[in-house]
């Protein structure tokens, strides 16, 4: 279980560019939760995931993973429990290393790295069977450099790498947004399958309302650094796209009112 306790995050505090990116976030991510995260641009969704992953520390508040206080743990240390897939397919893999070298790096996530062989013969079978699962033929290309793969293939590989060692939580930040619709759908299905198979706890940021409703057991909506809507299970299952759009506009009611005043 992951908890965020009154987490606040400012960027450029005290300057004219001050941004209040996380405004008193309280969140309990239960074991097995698959949370979809929505909200307009700049609402603070990525900031929340970055904060959980440890890219920066919150200004105030506390973060725990399985009752362990990780608030001041650097990113590399939290990586033992937390896996991520980024929007940019180039970020998740190492282009000049081969497919098997990338997977071998991933299989040591959060473990000590010593002077043993980087790619072990006994792991190759595991890599092959996992790759076969993707149905992209990559199991025949273990020795190909990852830089040769397409964006979709790289993102599929990244999904594998992120889940090679089971993480406590899998963080997906618009991880299909840079792919063409068909590939995006394949990666989305892959995500669903992996999450289901391993019973992973995960958070997925998306701008697609259908995906937000159709995937996961819980949905949270962000607005101006706050969680303004948090539903789960039956209540979430009953949501429609219209409901969400309504919520969206209600949250922005203030701004709309302001706009209409300006226009009048």
């Amino acid at each position, binding site marked *: 279980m992951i908890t965020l306790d009154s987490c606040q995050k400012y960027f450029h505090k005290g300057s004219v560019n001050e941004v209040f990116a996380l405004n008193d976030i309280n969140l309990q991510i239960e074991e097995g939760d698959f949370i979809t995260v929505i909200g307009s641009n700049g609402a603070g969704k990525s900031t929340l995931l970055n904060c959980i992953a440890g890219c920066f520390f919150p200004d105030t508040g506390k973060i725990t993973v399985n009752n362990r206080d990780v608030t001041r743990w*650097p*990113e590399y240390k939290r990586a*033992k429990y937390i896996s991520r897939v980024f929007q940019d397919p180039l970020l998740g*893999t190492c*282009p000049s*290393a081969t497919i098997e070298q990338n997977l071998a*790096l991933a299989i*040591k996530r959060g473990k000590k790295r010593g*002077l043993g062989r*980087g790619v072990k013969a006994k792991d190759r079978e595991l890599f092959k069977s996992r790759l076969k699962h993707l149905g992209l033929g990559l199991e025949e290309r273990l020795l190909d450099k990852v830089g040769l793969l397409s964006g979709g293939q790289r993102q599929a590989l990244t999904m594998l790498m992120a889940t090679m060692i089971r993480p406590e939580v899998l963080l997906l930040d618009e991880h299909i947004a840079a792919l063409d619709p068909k590939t995006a759908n394949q990666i989305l299905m892959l995500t669903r399958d992996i999450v289901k198979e391993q019973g992973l706890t995960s958070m997925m940021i998306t701008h697609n309302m259908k995906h937000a409703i159709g995937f996961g057991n819980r949905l949270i909506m962000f607005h101006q650094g706050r969680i303004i809507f948090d539903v789960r299970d039956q209540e979430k299952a009953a949501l429609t796209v219209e409901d969400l759009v309504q919520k969206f506009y209600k949250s922005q009611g203030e701004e709309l009112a302001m706009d209409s005043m300006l226009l009048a």
Partner: protein
Amino acid sequence: MTLYAAIGAVEQGLVYGIMVIGVYLTFRILDFPDLTVDGSLPLGAAISAVAITSGYNPYLSLVFAAMGGFLAGVVTAVLNTKFKILHLLASILTMIALYSINIRIMSGPNIALLGVDTVFDAVTALGVPAYYSGLIVFGLFAVCTVLLIVWFLSTELGQAMLATGDNPQMVTSLGVNTHTIIILGVGISNGLVALSGALVAQNQGAADVGMGIGTIVAGLASVIIGETVFGSKSIARAFTAALLGSIVYRLAIALALGLEIGGFSFNPSDLNLITAILVISALIAPNLKNRLMQR
């Protein structure tokens, strides 16, 4: 060029090749341009010379030298990673500090190594003619360095180092502390550079505080020539190319210095100009080749 000059150039290529391997590690693998080497090469020479004249075994003095170089690299990398000083600046700071430190170590600007045992004595004792001993000792050290570094980069730790230079964001998210890796890598690099300096000092019979000037230039020139001539498809190929690049570089310089066209010949002070021309040719050669192929 006489055979004697050629052997001398290959010898130099091999011994400085150990430095070039270190430069390849920082410059190409870690993407960390490191000027510390201009200070860590004479540091290795100084430590080795002082150790030998104090009665230590010449081979043991190489270990001390490498450890000293490693520490110098660690200082640069810590300044960069922990204190956020730009890598170039951090390395320049360590380099100028080493200038003073090297003089302290030697209690003066140089130390002569006359009439003392060096690593070459063990080889000549086996009956090898003196003029081949350099070639053999340097060749052994250089080849072992290449083998060791290629092996290291194939280990779990080495693979993390390769990935750190390639995609630091990704290795961090896989639980690697990139700071530790950079500190280790820059340390190893400067350890090799210091080892190279120690061997040079034992060969030429003296350590001198000024012997490091231009190390980084020679290192980069060798790296670039090696890549252009011998390629860099795999790690093993790339490091072998770096070593061979060093030999080609020294041979080219020896050739140029021995050149006589009519009444014209180069002076030793033209060395920098020759180096610049060599590097420029190596950099534009692939380009020219491509253009010619397209015609």
